[in-house]
């Protein structure tokens, strides 16, 4: 997930509950997306007030998202203005981070992030910040761009993420025939209500930025409670189709990885297309949906689809989460033979599709 802008230092007024904002160690962010920043704010507020998000001029630590396109430039400018800031890097690939600088790999595990912030604060206090700049970061970013699929080869355990918890909670609501509530610990009314009535609905009472951050967080079960909620009010909460929520959460959790235990050589076929007018359209989703509706293995798609493996893997993971795949006995790979069977030339269809993409 790339942040469109790197200049996003948080409001300096964000202080910890029951703690002294003045005494807390300030953390400025560079290139950190709104979703992650809101989650980070929540995390720091409920960590006893040792740290707080703030503007760069009040900060001792700068949290850099190396995946953000303009992170390096923004960091260079910030570092010139505030040379005492100690950097702490977030990123998909550890290789992106210069040696000697604290690094936390995505998806972010709150305990690891807090421990890294703590170490960074200690180093800042002893003036051992290990300043990094453009020259140190740029080569690693270039390497990352050259090998975007490397991180996608890994697998992830959906059970550690919100996506599986949402699936389980919805199943429990259906089993009980009554709503279930998933609530953020220490944040009353920030909740998802899973209502099994009328085919199933999810009522969303968590801001989307925070929800998206939670979706990317490992070991999310420690941060939420799940309880029966027979008389839970849902007025004013946004209603979602359960499949739409699961799809979106799976896309965010996958981050270019496939579920643990995936057999890339198993031939699968889509039972139906994902509902791409209502669910996140992942990169290449149209083409992947078409080919997988005809039957294919993950391995073949990674090799032949013409999109980065990470995009194939994300689409695959989301389809798995919603239960769209079934085994396919048909030989895979006949899409090549189908090409050109259209009444109109492919070039025209391609231009038309681009035109429609512009309209969408």
């Amino acid at each position, binding site marked *: 997930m790339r942040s469109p802008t790197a200049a996003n230092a948080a409001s300096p007024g964000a202080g910890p509950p029951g703690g002294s904002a003045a005494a807390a160690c300030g953390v400025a962010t560079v290139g950190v997306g709104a979703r992650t920043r809101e989650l980070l704010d929540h995390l720091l507020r409920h960590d006893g007030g040792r740290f707080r998000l703030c503007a760069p001029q009040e900060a001792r630590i700068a949290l850099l998202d190396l995946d953000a396109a303009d992170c390096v430039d923004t960091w260079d400018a910030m570092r010139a203005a505030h040379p005492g800031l100690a950097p702490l890097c977030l990123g998909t690939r550890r290789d992106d981070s210069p040696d000697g600088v604290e690094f936390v790999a995505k998806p972010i595990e709150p305990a690891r992030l807090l421990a890294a912030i703590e170490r960074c604060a200690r180093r800042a206090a002893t003036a051992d910040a290990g300043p990094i700049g453009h020259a140190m970061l740029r080569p690693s970013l270039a390497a990352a761009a050259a090998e975007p699929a490397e991180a996608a080869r890994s697998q992830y355990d959906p059970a550690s993420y919100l996506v599986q918890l949402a699936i389980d909670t919805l199943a429990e609501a259906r089993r009980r025939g009554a709503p279930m509530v998933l609530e953020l610990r220490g944040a009353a009314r920030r909740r998802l209500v899973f209502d099994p009535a009328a085919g199933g609905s999810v009522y969303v009472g968590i801001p989307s930025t925070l929800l998206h951050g939670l979706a990317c967080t490992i070991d999310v079960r420690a941060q939420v409670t799940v309880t029966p909620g027979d008389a839970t009010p849902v007025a004013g909460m946004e209603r979602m189709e359960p499949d739409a929520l699961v799809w979106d959460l799976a896309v965010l959790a996958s981050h270019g990885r496939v579920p643990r235990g995936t057999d890339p050589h198993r031939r699968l076929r889509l039972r139906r297309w994902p509902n791409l007018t209502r669910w996140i359209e992942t990169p290449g989703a149209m083409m992947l949906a078409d080919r997988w509706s005809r039957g294919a293995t993950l391995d073949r798609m990674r090799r032949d689809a013409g999109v980065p493996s990470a*995009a194939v893997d994300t689409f695959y993971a989301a389809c798995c989460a919603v239960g769209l795949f079934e085994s396919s006995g048909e030989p895979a790979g006949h899409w090549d033979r189908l090409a050109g069977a*259209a009444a109109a030339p492919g070039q025209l269809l391609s231009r038309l599709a681009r035109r429609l993409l512009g309209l969408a």
Partner: protein
Amino acid sequence: MNNHKIIFTGPVGAGKTTAINALSDVPTVRTDHRPSDATRLLKASTTVAMDYGLLRLGDGDRVHLYGTPGQERFQFMWDILREGGIGVVVLVDNLRAHPLDDLDRFLDAFREFTDRGHVAVGVTRMDCAREPGLQRYGEHLGRRGLRPPLFEVDARSRRDVATLVRALLHAVDPALPAGV
């Protein structure tokens, strides 16, 4: 100049006219008339010949968007419209009594597209009637051996209609680039 055609079909009130209107570069040509049959219970005017819209692609290439009349008695028009088409978009109104039967009827009527997989299905008014859900539509189509693009669609939404037609193009030509 090259002319190509995409057909929008489906029962009365499914949103064909609205969908074409959402996409067209020109004011849509409509052949509406006050209905004299049972259709008048559903809507004040209905398409009696066809709807027409246009997408210009530059270099003289144009894609014509034709909407079929919904009533069975205008079926002869369907034969005229299907000639030389790129593919067909079937819109199904989920508020009708038997939308899966409607779907079958229009898939059968455009079998030369359906059999080649040059079809996309949009289910309209799902905000008013959640059932049958897309899963049931998918199972129904699967029993016919079909796995076309199948989306919930608001025919008034240009984005929804454009996404559905884009999916149709991928179904028509699997070699289309991934980025479109």
